[in-house]
């Protein structure tokens, strides 16, 4: 996803629905926990598609071809931006 295709609106991961695409904008919380996501290949700028959730467990997303499961605790800590309406259209 190109930078020009990403909208400006920032949401939390919890506000997305299955099938939505997005780009991680920021990861809040303790630095060592953000580091865990970085090591798994998720950092601000990483594009993803939501495969499952959000539900009681969390979400499963696909980033760079890898499925990653994230527990519920992450849902409000990860801020994302979605493709702009123009890019969707």
């Amino acid at each position, binding site marked *: 996803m190109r930078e020009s295709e990403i909208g400006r609106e920032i949401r939390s991961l919890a506000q997305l629905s299955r099938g939505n695409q997005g780009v991680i904008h920021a990861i809040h919380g303790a630095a060592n926990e953000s580091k865990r996501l970085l090591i*798994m*290949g998720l950092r601000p*700028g990483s594009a993803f598609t939501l495969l499952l959730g959000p*539900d009681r467990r*969390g979400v499963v997303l696909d980033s*760079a071809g890898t499925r990653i*499961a*994230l*527990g519920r605790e*992450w849902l409000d800590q990860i801020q994302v931006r979605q493709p702009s309406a123009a890019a969707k259209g």
Partner: protein
Amino acid sequence: MVKHCSAVAGATLPAGSPRIALVGNPNCGKTTIYNLLTGTHQTVGNWPGVTVERRSGSARLAAGEKVEVIDLPGIYSLLGGGGEDQAVARQFLCDEDVELIVQVLDASTLERHLLLTAELIELERPLLIILNMVDEAQDRGLRIEASALSVRLGVPVVPMVARRGKGLGELRLALREALRAHVLPQRPDWEPVVEASLSELSTEIGAQIGEERSRFLAWQTLEMPESTPPALRAARERVAQRLQQGSGEDVVDLLPAARFSWAAALASRVTQATGKAGWRQRATRHLDRWILHDWLGVPIFLAVLYLVFVVSFSGGNVFLDFFDQTSAALLMHGFGHLLLQVGAPGWLVSALAGGIGGGLNLVISFIPPIGLTFLFLAFLEDSGYMARAAYVMDRLMRRVGLPGNALVPMVIGFGCNVPAIMGARIIDDPRGRVLTVLMQPFMSCSARLTIYMAFAVVFFRGNGGQVVFLLYLTGILMALFTAWLLGKTALRGQARPFVMELPPYRLPSLRSVALQAWQRLRIFVLRVGKVIAAIGFILFLLPGIGWTSQGLRATDIDHSLLAQGSEALVPLFAPMGIQRDNWPAVAGLVAGAAAKEVVIGTLNGIYQRQAGGDLMAQYRDPNIVQALRDALATIPENASKLLSSFTDPLGFADLNQRDASIADSGASSQTLGALAQSFTPLSALAYLLFVLLYVPCASTMGALRREVGWGWMLFSTAYGIGIAWAVATLVYQWGTFAGHPRTTWGWTAAIAIALLLLLLGLRQQGRRHSRLHLQEQG
């Protein structure tokens, strides 16, 4: 095979066996490649100072050319993350000398795997790349240009489908050439400002501490300021400041960004899209909708575990009698007969054939169910299901402060606590791992069932199944209570937020699964076998000797060391209903602390001796050939019962059939008669609760010490004995309340005070632990 040399640092194959290290992200197929290369020529040990398995093996590349292959635990990064196993792999790669690092990449998710490649390149050591799972990449509609990747990285790249053994010949050839050529990778073209900073800091590190891996250390200190050695802090600050000014970005973000951009750009340059995603991707997507379903996920997980449990135990039972009877015929009766023939005295025959031979017989009879459990667990791990199971169970387990994957060791614990404790290594959070390990002794293993069976026959005929089910349930509740209690006190904290990669579903390679299971089984048999054989030897000596007025002499069993020691301990067990003359029950508990399998055997031995039985009869004239024939005949006989046992893997149905229960328990008629005289149904229940909850066996405690250290092992031993005694005493005392209300209230108050003191002690420990943790962080 494609190769490209950017630097050559040698021209001949090193003398002796060169070492190569296999490295890669978890689930990249590294272990399958390791198994392909080394076959059965593997050794499994521990890395020094930690409990992580060290797997190395010998691989033959050509006639007369062998290499040592070290299979490192899967890692995502050299810069941190993961549990103890990943730390070991990082340390090895940074500090140890190996002739060649071989990185395994999953071709279907190339971009992510190249992130680790970027870090490995900065180690400036000879590197070879295996592009594994090219079939999965094709299924995703991707074609990776191995030659283009090789040119850009400057190292040989070998495409493979390791699961099917494709590309093995090319890999061997590439390894031989790489070991001769010492090919160093080509450094990525970092932004000039990044490259200048890395070079400057690297030079400074080289000058200051003469660090061999100065380039990697420069990267590490810039990205992870907390890891900077004191001598380098000033230099790091200076370079970081300049880099920040030059780039306008925070250094800690800038370097990962550079790595991610490089990986994305390189992956896109060497990847061609050839079409749409294939059936594997679609199958994974569809399966995940059900397996990770919000409501169905947990029942599916429980069904899978039940299936593993049932198939392992029901399937294992088909061969259990064969293993049991064959080893008894050879190691006990045959060996004992041989000793008698050469004129060995009776006590030596008893100790060697009955003690050591009998101990080995016990271990060998457990091989089929435990081997099958290992086989199925390896299958589930390689199939991609285990990661999903952890995610599915995470929400529920979190309520007692545990991560989701803690449930897997708990279920293994029904079979045997030793592999369950070893299985807790899948948990990367150290706190969660310790809690999980400490829960395992309460899971009722299969060895305890033989004791339940013997008592059920005598005391709970008609409702034996319910009593045994209650015991299993008590074990589970006590395990969860222990995790909750420690999680609120000594190991205060919360389970870390869940994050885990979910690999695509794969049909595992049978060879790889079988080899993994075999390695685990071998370790189990060797470790447990040694302990049980030694205990068997001692247990057969103790009933024959005792302190007399003339010192230590051969005596009858009622005056033996076993009787004297057990009688001294009987008063401790009086509150749970064990009478003074019931010292054999205490002897059984003492022996059972070493191995539950020997409890009924010990009771058999004691009651047989008390009845004046001829202990040598079984060795005098054994019909070994007939015994072996009978053993062989049990396989088809047990196989015919296989289907019916699927609904009752533990054999609870046998509890309603007296003869079947007696056979399953292994108790002699003398033992059953003596039990009936020595216990009441209530004291029998209290005794069984004690058996369930106290120390499971020496092997489990040994495994516990290896996994979490001496301190927790000693705590677990004392806590288990204390809890077992408290529960058994409360049950017996309240069951007989009408006869002695004051005593019952007295013991109940004493137990409540002891529990309170335990709680306060654990809270204190938790506070101290938190303070230390804060100091470390500060």
